[in-house]
């Protein structure tokens, strides 16, 4: 019969072997999981990036999730509407605003628009793009599209869209849809036309124009910053 020290040595040997064997198995499992997980992660990120680039160029980027509909905002009587927005990507090339659909097409004159960039504290905005569009003709299908030359470095930009309505009020003016939205987004501000002296009125906290931001169709590569 083996002596006690010999038995103890044998037991220690056996425990060490068992420990090493289990460490090898567990290490192999962890390594395999990590490699496979990273592989799937890379594929998923690439697929999501391609999908999002396609969606941005096809549908644009939603400015804010909107919920309950509030009374619409008529673009008439020379009102001035301002809506701040932030662009998440380069290549901002169009804005799309939801309008109220009516059975007959809306009437009205040209709508002047300006896109300014709010730099610093926003007291000295910089004019980036501007133009005039035929609101009535451009609002077919329930959306008012405002295309402009792409802004190459729009990512992270803080902008404000300013719309100036025609001075008259037709019987069926073009109207923008207004929705409630959670408070993380800027509410729009509406100023009455030049015929009145009332001050600008910000909308209630939690209301916004329903807007989509469109970017030029360039999918970012997964490795690009």
């Amino acid at each position, binding site marked *: 019969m083996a002596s006690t020290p010999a038995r103890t040595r044998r037991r220690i040997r056996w425990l060490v072997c068992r420990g090493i064997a289990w460490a090898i198995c567990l290490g192999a*499992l962890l390594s395999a999981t990590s490699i496979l997980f990273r592989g799937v992660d890379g594929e998923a990120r690439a697929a999501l990036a391609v999908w999002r680039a396609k969606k941005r160029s096809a549908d644009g980027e939603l400015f804010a999730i909107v919920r309950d509909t509030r009374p619409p905002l008529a673009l008439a009587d020379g009102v001035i509407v301002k809506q701040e927005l932030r662009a*998440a*990507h380069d290549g901002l090339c169009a804005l799309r605003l939801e309008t109220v659909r009516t059975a007959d097409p809306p009437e009205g004159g040209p709508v002047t628009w300006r896109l300014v960039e709010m730099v610093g504290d926003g007291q000295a905005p910089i004019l980036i793009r501007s133009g005039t569009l035929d609101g009535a003709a451009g609002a077919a299908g329930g959306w008012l599209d405002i295309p402009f030359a792409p802004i190459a470095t729009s990512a992270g930009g803080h902008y404000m869209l300013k719309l100036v309505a025609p001075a008259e009020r037709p019987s069926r003016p073009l109207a923008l849809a207004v929705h409630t939205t959670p408070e*993380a987004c800027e509410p729009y501000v509406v100023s009455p036309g030049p015929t009145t002296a009332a001050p600008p009125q910000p909308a209630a906290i939690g209301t916004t124009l329903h807007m989509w931001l469109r970017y030029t169709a360039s999918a970012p590569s*997964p490795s690009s910053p």
Partner: protein
Amino acid sequence: MRPARAPGAPPPFGTLLAAELAAAIRHPLITYLAATTAAVVILFARAPRPYVIPQLFAEDGLWSSLLHTRGFWYAAFHGRPESDYCILGNVLLLAAGRAWCALVHGGDPLEYPRSCAWVSYLFYGAIFSLPVLLLRRRLPAAQLLVLWLLACFLPLGIHDSSFSGFEILGRVSNIGFACLYAAFLLVWYRTTAAPGPAALVATDLGLLACVTTNPLAAVVLPAAAWPAIRDLRQGTRAAADVARDPAVVSLLMLVAACAGLCGLPNPWKIRPREPIPPLGAAAVVELGLARNTLFPLVWPVYRHLSTGLTLGMTACVVAAIHRWSLPRHRPLFLGGAALLAVTATVLVVFRPELGIHIGGYRSTFPDRYFYGQNLVGLALLAAFAADVGERLRERGWLRHLPVAGLLVLLAAAVIHEPPWRLAPSQCLRPEGRLFALRAARAVGEGRFVDERLRADPAGRFVSIPNPEGTPKRIVLPRAPLVRALVARGLDPSAPNGAGVIPAQALEPLAR
């Protein structure tokens, strides 16, 4: 020529190591861990969104906020607004996510949602692989393997346009029905394996965790008493012996612990506020039988079913089980049928609004209410396949027919929801990536609260608006959040709360 080893001398170290390695590879625990890690990869491939674009979705946000502000036990017992039952398992996983975030990401709160997603995949992988550990002596290896694969590829509506693929895998809020499946397997193991003391304690602790996460899991507890009841009825053991049986004592302690921790849930508390008309007979058949019970078998033709077809198929299934199941599995099928019947009844009576979603076999949404029962159905299907295979043992190649049938079902599932293709449900709610921006803005605007969520400029927590859904805000610890924002270049002290936002902060995919 190698010198012969002296008799009684220990084997060489290399030989011993090789033998131990071979034994370790075959060890049930290693097999279970291998199955779990493989399941984690499969489930992640099926629904990668929660990890790639992490966000705290639905109750994950609410319970995480409670975990951070009020602590573990408060969140576990008061996490549900109605306080109708405790959510120990959910909060346990969220706490595990927090611990993982502390270990791997230095406690960065903005990485916390990703850590929770990782813990969720691990949990589902472990539960789906549980039969590999618990039923290795109860089912043949072929049926066991196919059961594991069928669980990993169970159709969950991931490739539909609904939220099912967005809200189950990678989330913690909907693990409750997985606990139903786990409880079923644990009781199956407990009643057939005669576990030793350590295994018995582990099994009963697992059952306790299941019941304190989803009170419906308590339905399986009476089945755990079946061996003792059988022995008493057959007279094989005296009542005194049964009363002293560790399994019986442990079961009684388990029941007492469940009652003490959970109380008796009031099912009326979970009724929706708006009255919903009761379901008609056709909707009851669809919800209770087709979706809740038969789905693992009929999902390829689910949208073509009707009330008559569902009833007919149910009758066929019952007849087949009665005709071909083996006597040793009869209690299993009865217990499984009882579990499915109780869950169907609970859903029909207390959640009739589910009938609106799936009305007319148009959709399988909301899959989160049914996947646990479907997994139980898969386990019963595997057991039935084993019984039929056993009966066809002498018929040559015919004995492989049941497994072949399950493999066909598996192939159809993989083709129906291929893990290698990005599902539309993974692209929902793209605004989730703005969480860091909203957090920076919340800090910049001074949205600080105390542990009771009262506004407090010196509060230790930040209340971050969550516009996309519920909850309306997510509360995270202030100091680590500010450090994390500054590290990302989002300076909360700048005007407008967000300062200059670099493109990297807006594009979590580009890492």
